[in-house]
């Protein structure tokens, strides 16, 4: 089958971006919304068709899913093997992403028609959404590391634009900048990793890089650096890039702030697509992670994931801004996916962790997008992000209530909702391979249920605050998106994922271990019941706990002061002790301001400074001393 037509998948959103971006003054709301949604509908149809054809008709040869280059063009040639290509790669994980990305993006497009109603720059918003979708599709379909990197950056740029969309809000601008710079910083790890790979492996191509024979050869050839294969070092660097985008500790600080962006953007970027790019990247290079240095890099992935999942879950319990609760929950769930990849083996049943990680990515995209969009509907109704302004909403927002409940049950791991199946697979994989991580995962499962139902009961039950306006259900475009996602959340758990995704692309059988499943359902229910006791009706039980925990609570509420630590390092150390002296030097010495001259003569000094300053002499002095200094240094270090 010729898959060349798949180039349309990224190109349609690109076209929509250019079209809407160039005509943003002419095309008015809601036409641009309809156009954007229609464009994305087309993309989604083609994507789903491609994924279907791949999985059921043409992808499998002799029982193994093939990596198919639907399209590939050499772009810059370095050597015979090392060249930068642009193309489209179809394999099980990119086909899965072909379902996730367009589906969630389509829902967000649809939903935003209602949510962004009467916002200034409505068309601009749709243009950015299309740009983001284009970048994300280019990223997941990339045939090689370099293409991945380019789209990776494009994703960063477009999310910068989307987070900073409300540019009247200073906090939104700060958040956008923070997200951009933090992830950029991590990306440099990625870039250096790519450089090292290109030198050691002499190729960027995924098909070659994940080939087992090639990996075995490379193991022999690659040099050693600090006791590790150079490739492992490169993989760790690449993982730093992934950790930045996926908000893994300690590079997570941008994600909670990024909630300043419009809520549909959070649903798209911070729940389902961009933040899982790191997971996708590790999955993409999985054979390399697994085989070099006995999976040393993979262990790092597992532990970073495990730590983040616990860390974020603890913080999520204490937050009051509903979007921030969801942000920390996202971090925690991505940590879950990472740890699943981290504990995975290779081949047959061993690949359960890999499969479970991707499965969780898939189901999480559905229910987390649903939660975010639900949160959007709530915020739309009460005009606030804070729990204190909510309560008893189940009477006013029936559809949102039901869909939110379904998503909350799914994330808590209650059958038959999607999250149960994927979470259970993750726990099973961890149980097999790494018991301490399993314990962490198990505890987090309970905490997740607790904070999610704390959120749910607090919003939809509790007691009514005095609403100024009676909250009303969201318009149809928004509720339709909620209902579709809710259906997906109910249904997607039943997909036999191991028939499609595995580390070696060979389907295997997986089954539910009911002992383990029972235990995980148990702890989920425990979390839900605890939340029910605390939050079903308004009472001060939670307050009393808060006081009892005192400082522990305060630390947690303040996200363990990680932001403050960064702030201290950048503001105090870099600015005060490094940059400020430079600025002083610039001002006092280089700029030659006549220091020490009394206030009365400053005026004269500024007048004459321009005409006859001592500056040029200073420059000459610097110049000559520079030359002499360099000569001296070299003379001293050579020996003739």
């Amino acid at each position, binding site marked *: 089958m010729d898959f060349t037509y798949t180039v349309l998948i990224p190109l349609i959103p690109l076209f929509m971006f250019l079209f809407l971006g160039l005509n943003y003054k002419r095309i008015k709301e809601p036409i641009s919304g309809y156009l954007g949604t229609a464009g994305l509908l087309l993309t989604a149809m083609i994507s789903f068709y491609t994924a279907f054809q791949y999985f059921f008709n043409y992808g499998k040869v002799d029982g193994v899913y093939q990596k198919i280059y639907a399209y590939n063009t050499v772009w*810059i040639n370095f050597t015979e093997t090392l060249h930068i290509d642009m193309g489209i790669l179809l394999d099980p994980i990119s086909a899965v992403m072909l379902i996730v990305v367009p589906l969630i993006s389509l829902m967000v497009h649809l939903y935003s028609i209602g949510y962004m109603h009467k916002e200034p720059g409505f068309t601009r918003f749709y243009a950015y959404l299309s740009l983001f979708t284009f970048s994300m599709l280019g990223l997941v379909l990339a045939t090689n590391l370099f293409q991945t990197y*380019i789209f990776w950056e494009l994703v960063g740029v477009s999310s910068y634009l989307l987070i900073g969309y409300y540019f009247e809000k200073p906090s939104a601008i700060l958040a956008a900048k923070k997200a951009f710079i933090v992830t950029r910083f991590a990306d440099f790890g990625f870039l*250096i990793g790519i450089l090292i790979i290109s030198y050691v492996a002499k190729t960027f191509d995924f098909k070659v890089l994940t080939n087992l024979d090639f990996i075995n050869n490379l193991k022999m050839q690659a040099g050693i650096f600090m006791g590790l294969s150079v490739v492992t070092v490169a993989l760790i660097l690449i993982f730093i890039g992934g950790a930045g985008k996926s908000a893994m500790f300690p590079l997570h600080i941008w994600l909670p702030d990024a909630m300043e962006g419009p809520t549909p953007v959070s649903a798209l970027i911070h729940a389902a697509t961009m933040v899982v790019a790191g997971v996708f990247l590790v999955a993409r290079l999985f054979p390399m992670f697994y085989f070099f240095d006995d999976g040393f890099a993979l262990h790092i992935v597992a532990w970073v994931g495990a730590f983040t999942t616990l860390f974020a879950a603890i913080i999520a319990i204490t937050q009051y801004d509903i979007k921030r609760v969801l942000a920390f929950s996202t971090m925690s769930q991505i940590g879950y996916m990472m740890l699943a990849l981290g504990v995975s083996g290779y081949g047959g049943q061993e690949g359960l962790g890999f499969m479970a990680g991707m499965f969780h990515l898939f189901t999480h995209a559905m229910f987390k997008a649903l939660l975010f969009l639900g949160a959007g509907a709530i915020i739309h109704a009460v005009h606030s992000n804070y729990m204190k302004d909510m309560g008893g909403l189940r009477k006013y927002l029936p559809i949102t209530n039901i869909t939110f409940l379904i998503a909350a049950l799914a994330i808590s791991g209650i059958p038959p909702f999607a999250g149960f199946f994927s979470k259970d697979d993750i726990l099973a994989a961890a149980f097999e391979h790494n018991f301490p991580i399993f314990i962490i995962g198990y505890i987090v499962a309970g905490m997740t249920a607790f904070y999610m139902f704390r959120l749910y009961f607090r919003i939809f039950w509790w007691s009514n605050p005095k609403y100024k306006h009676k909250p009303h259900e969201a318009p149809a475009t928004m509720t339709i998106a909620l209902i579709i996602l809710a259906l997906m959340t109910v249904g997607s758990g039943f997909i036999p994922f191991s028939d499609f995704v595995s580390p070696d692309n060979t389907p295997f059988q997986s089954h539910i271990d009911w002992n383990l499943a029972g235990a995980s359902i148990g702890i989920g229910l425990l979390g839900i019941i605890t939340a029910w006791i605390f939050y079903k009706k308004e009472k001060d039980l939670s307050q009393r706990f808060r006081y009892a925990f005192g400082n522990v609570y305060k630390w947690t509420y303040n996200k363990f002061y990680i932001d403050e630590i960064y702030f201290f390092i950048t503001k105090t150390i870099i600015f005060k002790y490094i940059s400020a002296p*430079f*600025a002083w030097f610039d001002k006092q010495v280089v700029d030659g301001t006549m220091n020490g001259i009394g206030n009365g003569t400053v005026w004269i000094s500024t007048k004459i400074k321009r005409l006859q300053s001592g500056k*040029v002499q200073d420059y000459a002095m610097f110049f000559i001393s520079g030359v002499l200094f360099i000569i001296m240094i070299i003379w001293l270090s050579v020996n003739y």
Partner: protein
Amino acid sequence: MNLSNMLLMRNELVLILVILILIIADIFVADKNKKAVNYIAVGLFAVHTLIGFIPLKEGALFGGMFVTNSLVWGFKNILNVGVLLIILLAVSWLNKNSLRNRKIGEFYILIFSSLLGMFYLISSRNFLMLYLSLELSTLPVTALAAYDIFNRKSSEAGIKLILSAALSSGIFLFGMSLLYATGGSLYFDALTGNIGHSYLSIAGLVMFFAGLAFKISLVPFHFWTADVYEGAPTPVSNYLSVISKSSAVFILMITLFVTLNELKDIWIPMLYGISILTMFIGNFFALRQQNLKRFLAFSSVAQAGFIMMGMLAADHLAASSVIYFLAIYIFSNIGAFGVVQAVSLASGKENISDYNGLYRTNPKISLILMISLFSLAGIPPIAGFFGKFFLYTAAAGKGYYLLVFIAVVNVTISLYYYLLVVRAAFLRRSENPIPYFKSDIFTKIGLIIVVIALFFLGLYSPFYDYIDSVTHILNI
């Protein structure tokens, strides 16, 4: 030597012809029609640029003092395009103030003479030739820096530039004579392999290097940069920051890679240290600037540090990546300066805070500013990213991972301050933003070419392939 050999200097001859025609035209055009000189100059130079693209024979002249080959020819074309863009952007500035109109011709004559110097500079294969052409390229620029005679800052810039330049050429000349003393010749070819390691040759190398480092604005020879860029008319700062800098880098590369190759063990560590210093100092100063021209001055200092990082790999890839980076850098910086100039012309404002809310009033020019700055910061898919990427590759290929890491840290710092400007223009609001203004057709054409080039040069890979193929001439 017969006359047809002189055609090897076709670029130079055509340019001299252009200058002569301009001198005559300047006399004949009546004072009240002085603006016409602009069109004559731009038209003539455009023709010159086009002629430049006609392929040229390879060969040497004047007993090997002057050579031309596809590498030199290609680089001259890049310079031509750069200068064409700069004068396109300069037209509206020249037209603005009628008091200055009387000297319009002078501006072009000086800038073309300096370019002529650059041409000889990059073609020279003899130190004497190199020195003379360096002077020819510098002196007209000092006059240009002081061109705006009604502006004290401009005069100050001129004085500062000429004093600093005189000092640097003195030291350069001294270094050259030391190299002559150790190698016994002024010809590059004859010197190659004959210099030897001695205290004398090292002193010669460093002094020679300092003379060119002055033009490239490497730390600690960069002090003039900020003052001169700030004071000089913007087109002149633009010229200094791209054309002057890149031709100096080019000839530095030729001399280091070929003639002084045997002193590699000396100049590689030297460049290593200077590269780090230059990146950090340029960046830290840029961080605190309010005036955009000063800001761009320090940013161009930092960029020079990156170039040195690629250079010290000292192989074929290094040569290709440096030239590729220069070509892209020329466009990025011209774009940034072009926008600053257009804004300053329309509103007289040059500070970053004045740019608050620019996007709301002037969306197109803000976009161009953003693209240029993103290119300087190295954000894909804009060309600047690829330029930087190849520099990293060159340095990493020789195992200078630490340096690459330091460069990466610096790129992050630079991203921060480039974003400050972008943020001001796009995200900040202002009570009284710079009002909407219209630029003249020349500015528009110039900036459009810049934007197209910034996307095209990065994404169109045959461009890199071409550079890669011509750098084989260097035989390294």
